[in-house]
């Protein structure tokens, strides 16, 4: 397989012209939050922050699904992994994320059967191959991963599997943004909305952001030119005093999203309250299995006792996730907390803000 069209989205001449346009257009303060961790990485990796005029500030938001997974949910996965016949299957990103006392990586080293898979369907296959084990898939992610995980649950039901379960800790994006803006902690003047989530849900779930809160929004792709163009579109909205939901990522996002994916997701899951790390419980932003798929719920099927939840001392991931602090403003950043010895989740996940800032030295002291 060959993936082409990378350099096309990194054309330096087009980039220069977009940067010039942003510089010429921007007069008002623009505090733009990129919601998605993939955007955070793209901005850091391509040095986009250094290309911005002083009026444009880029803040990172709560868009790394690994980072916003609550400690108690990780604690549960760890306790589940200690049950004799349980195999935990997970996306690789979750392995090193610290819970209250341990991480899946540490438990694996200590002897728990924990395996990295690239799709929930791999976990279904594993359950079918190993009927003597109970296979639990750690279902993390936003609307991007929920449909395929829903499809895997449907598949498990079709195959009549009794040893496949999911630990559903999904989060949904739009109402989390509402909570962030309602909190008023940070005055966000524009949102760079996640392209992949929006490819699933379309543009309509975001309309309230413009209509009720008058926040300009642009749904952006993930290549550097996409992000630059999205920033330019946001700057234009801000300058003209408009607030609307625009789509920069037209090659990926249709106004109605991906109806098949949404229907699959809705068939298996229904909304519930979700506990976001460092933000707290946000009503209606979780997904739980519907009654007819409840048999696949690991929480109900496999009882474990959870230890008391503990937050790491001094960790300011919460402030980072809410856009209150830049990662490098955390007292632990780069000192007590590095990707090799992470304290908080934002330094662990490849899409965590702290890891992205650290890895690409995207902070003032790094470049001196």
């Amino acid at each position, binding site marked *: *397989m*060959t*993936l*082409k069209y*990378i*350099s096309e989205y*990194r054309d*330096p001449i087009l*980039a*220069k012209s977009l940067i010039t346009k942003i510089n010429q257009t921007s007069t008002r303060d623009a505090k733009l939050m990129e919601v998605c961790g993939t955007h955070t*990485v793209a901005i850091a*990796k*391509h*040095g*986009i922050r*250094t*290309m911005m005029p002083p009026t444009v500030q880029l803040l990172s938001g709560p868009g790394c699904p690994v980072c916003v997974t609550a400690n108690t949910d990780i604690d549960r996965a760890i306790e589940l992994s200690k049950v004799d016949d349980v195999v935990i299957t997970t996306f690789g990103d979750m392995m*090193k994320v610290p819970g209250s006392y341990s991480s899946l990586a540490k438990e694996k080293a200590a002897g728990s059967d924990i395996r*990295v*898979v*690239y*799709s929930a369907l*791999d976990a279904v296959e594993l359950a079918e191959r190993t009927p003597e084990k109970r296979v639990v898939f750690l279902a993390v992610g936003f609307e991007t991963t929920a449909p395929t995980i829903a499809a895997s649950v449907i598949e498990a039901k079709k195959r009549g599997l009794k040893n496949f379960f999911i630990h559903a800790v999904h989060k949904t994006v739009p109402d989390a943004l509402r909570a962030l803006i309602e909190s008023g902690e940070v005055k966000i003047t524009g949102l760079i909305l996640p392209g992949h989530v929006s490819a699933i849900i379309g543009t309509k779930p975001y309309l309230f952001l413009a209509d009720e809160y008058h926040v300009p929004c642009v749904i952006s792709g993930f290549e*550097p030119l996409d992000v630059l163009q999205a920033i330019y579109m946001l700057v234009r909205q801000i300058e003209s005093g408009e607030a609307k939901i625009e789509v920069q990522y037209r090659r990926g996002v249709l106004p109605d999203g991906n109806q098949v994916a949404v229907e699959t997701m809705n068939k298996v899951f229904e909304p519930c309250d979700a506990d976001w790390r460092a933000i707290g419980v946000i009503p209606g932003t979780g997904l739980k299995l519907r009654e007819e798929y409840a048999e696949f719920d690991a929480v109900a099927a496999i009882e474990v006792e959870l230890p008391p939840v503990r937050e790491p001392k001094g960790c300011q991931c919460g402030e980072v996730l809410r856009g209150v602090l830049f990662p490098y403003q955390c007292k632990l950043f780069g000192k007590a907390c*590095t*990707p*090799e010895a992470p304290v908080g989740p934002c330094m662990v996940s*490849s*899409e965590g803000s702290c890891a992205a800032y*650290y*890895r*690409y*030295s*995207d902070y003032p002291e*790094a*470049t*001196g």
Partner: protein
Amino acid sequence: MKQDTILLAHGSGGTLMHKLISGLFASKFSNPILDKLDDSATFELPPGRVSFSTDTYVVQPLMFRGGNIGKLAVCGTVNDVSAMGAEPMYLSCGFVIEEGLAVSELETILDSMVASAKEAGVLIVTGDTKVVEKGGADRLFINTAGVGVVRDGVDIGAAKAKIGDKILLSGTIGDHGIAVVSEREGLTFETAVESDCAPLNKMISSMLDVSRNVHCLRDPTRGGLASALNEFAAASDVGLHIIEDRVPVRDEVAGACELLGYDVFHVANEGKIVAIVEPADADAVLAAMKTSPYGVDAAIIGEVVDEPKGKVLVDTHFGSTRILDILVGEQLPRIC
């Protein structure tokens, strides 16, 4: 009667072990030094400084596009010895075999070792085999060690980069890491990328033929090009300035890195060399690299600068400049 799989008894010191050693290892690796089957190999080395290196190979899976664990075990050590400016001559190899490994698979791996040793012009002169019970190892681990003699007048070291020196790279990066990860069980991801695993001693020798002013040499394996460059920058207390557009990367590798979220500068290579060379000699060394089949894509990718000391800067294709840091944590376990 030939056994189809390796049994515990193959490592027990008895008849099965004797058959395995004489029938398989000794006959395939046969050379006058090894054939004596003494407790250790004895040989003369030409005068000069000795370069001596060892490495253990645990790559999973054993077979991957462009090579296997055996080829890797020979090439890796040949390249490590060569990277000090030495001509590698003799290798040892130790095998840890998990019972149940198919003899046919072992034979394929040994054949690759023989072919790579022949290509590199080195002899495997001593070895050891242990068989462990199921679960005691993951199918097969190989250790190799190698010795060679450093060429007279050559003085290579990571701390020897000088401001103004040119940075040369022998070809495309990331091929090995992507080839291996695409073979991994559970990764339903296909690519035509082959591992670049190759013995580089002849190419390095031809580079040293044309210049005595190769200051640093390294084969950028685990941690990728980023690690090698950062080690040079730190050891020599200089800055390295790289132009991303000059670093050759296959389209398939670039695409796979995008999908998997890897930085290609961190992805492992097993058949590449990065060199820091006095500017006056850079073109000649580049031309020498290009005469090797493993150096056709060689390029000058940047130069050594005064500041920022100990860091590697990359001018990106996109027009920005970023610091290229070493890989933190693990990216791909067991790639070599």
